[in-house]
């Protein structure tokens, strides 16, 4: 699904250049649930942004769904994001003046689906994340966990192949974090690839594979030996 061959990324800050990604080789296959870990500044968010076409890499090859991502203009990138990718952010990034159903429906607007139809679909997704009673609430009337579930519904509605989550539980307490992780696990079971950037070990350990970044390079990439399928994990606690 996602293939990196020697990806480099530098940021220009004033006169000095900051080399963030120093040759990343990575392959994520369809249906995987992967955690990307690392200390701050290790380049994990940059990695996610490049995967998500929110940022552009400087060197190396990036294949998304088997196609080489190269010299994309903004319009093409926008269409790819809309078609293949769903985003979940630490700070939710909901549009504050739109209510829950409108926020969820927004990706469908950019697919050219009529208002009536996309709002209907959005209601279904709100139901999936358990927010149906809050459909006409504005984001600031929702709790952190509700906001993140709303954001997940929005990420899902475009029927993406990959969901990219940047510290999705960073702003949540442990109970709501767990709810969000359960939601991700459920989504993953339906066949959607999920990549989660996190620095919390217990979050990372609920995925099937952990990639540790250190100083712009992959330090460790291992299958999660302790991975317990969600249902059994729930039983153990």
């Amino acid at each position: 699904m996602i293939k990196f061959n020697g990806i480099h990324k530098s940021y220009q800050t004033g006169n000095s250049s900051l080399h963030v990604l120093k040759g990343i080789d990575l392959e994520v296959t369809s249906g995987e649930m992967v955690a990307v870990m690392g200390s701050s500044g290790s380049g994990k968010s940059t990695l996610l942004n490049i995967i998500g076409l929110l940022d552009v890499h400087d060197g190396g090859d990036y294949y998304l769904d088997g196609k080489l991502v190269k010299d994309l203009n903004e319009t093409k990138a926008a269409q790819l994001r809309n078609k293949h990718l769903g985003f979940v952010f630490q700070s939710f990034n909901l549009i504050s003046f739109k209510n829950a159903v409108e926020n969820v429906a927004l990706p469908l607007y950019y697919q050219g689906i009529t208002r009536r139809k996309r709002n209907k679909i959005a209601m279904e997704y709100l139901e999936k994340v358990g927010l149906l009673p809050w459909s006409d609430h504005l984001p600031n009337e929702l709790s952190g966990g509700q906001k993140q579930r709303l954001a997940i519904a929005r990420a899902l509605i475009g029927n993406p192949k990959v969901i990219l989550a940047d510290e999705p539980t960073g702003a949540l307490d442990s109970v709501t974090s767990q709810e969000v992780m359960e939601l991700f696990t459920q989504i993953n079971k339906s066949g959607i690839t999920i990549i989660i950037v996190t620095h919390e070990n217990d979050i990372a350990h609920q995925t099937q594979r952990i990639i540790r970044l250190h100083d712009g390079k992959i330090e460790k990439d291992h299958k999660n030996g302790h991975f317990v399928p969600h249902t059994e994990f729930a039983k153990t606690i």
Partner: protein
Amino acid sequence: MFDIDKWQEIFNTIEKNKLRTFLTGFSVAWGIFMLIILQGSGIGLQKGVENQFRSSATNAIWIWNGQTSKPYKGNKPGRNIRMKNEDYDYLNAHVDGLDQISGRFHVWSNVLAYKKQSGSYTIRGVHPDYQKVEKLSLLSGRFLNENDQRFKQKNVLISKLVSDALFKAEDPLGKYIRINGIPFKVVGVFVDDDGRDDNMQLVYISIATAQTVFGGERDIHGMVVTVGDANEKEAKKIEDDIKAKMANLHRYDPEDENAMFFWNSVEEFTKFQKLFASIRLFIWVIGIGTIIAGVVGVSNIMMIVVKDRTKEIGIRKALGATPGSIISLILQEAVLITAFAGYFGLVIGVGLLELVSEHIQTPFFREPEVDISVAIGATLLLIIAGALAGFIPARRAAAIKPIEALRDE
């Protein structure tokens, strides 16, 4: 452009950002409103003054008798100058460039009577040309003509006011009124609607009749000539020509300002026209200034709007919005708001002018109105300015990488 869904999206955004929308709209509406009020007031002032000139020809030179104030060729000062019929004939024959010419002979406080009604009015004896000079409008009948003059006919032209007073609802044409006991036949009814009552408190008869019947011999109290379409300079030349000839004829010092009085309406009218040209210019300068202020206001707000929405733009881009869709979203919103607000300012401004013009009709301010093409032009200008002001930052916002837009707090 006619994508209903996009409009719904825009209306949605507007509805949820009322203050921002109001501020943008207000600066546009205010600019258009001020422009219309200024334009309307300028036109109102101009019409007021033009109206002052409306009741008599704007190309006339008026002449009155005076009294010498300087000694000249053995004559002491203080001598009264009296024009006679000869002066009329002389000017008629010897001054070039005259269009119409008429003498004036006044008889004050006469008793006019018809049946049991009577009143005191002024009689003005004039030549047939006088109608055009004073711009009298006939309600019925005719003006005094050459026959009245030549045969000293006892025919009279009465004002609407006199007609109402003496005849009430009766048709006065062909009826006889008594002026100081002498019967005169009514040949016409006129109005002189310059708003001055004393120009209606009188009747006109031919000057020859007036001189004969009311003992004026060959006296003329005043004269008026029109100079066709002469410009200010030409009119001044004719005036100087008349002054020199009158001074020569009546043997007074040509430098004597009091021997006879002259009033050149061409000169006065031109002065007013120049004054109003400057006022118009001034109004335009202020109007354009107001529009520029509006443009700057709209630009400013659009810049802030785009800045304000950078994060939202980032979110939209992450969800699949293309740069084109971002730009058109912001532009259409800007155009919609400015167009609506501009129209609003237009309606309020025109409405206020209508209200004012209905209730305020002073001699120097009347019928304010606005050149609607100017107002629409200004609105279009503001819309284009708003679109342009929105376009530049919108394009920049749409072009930045979504991750940078998302980072914006």
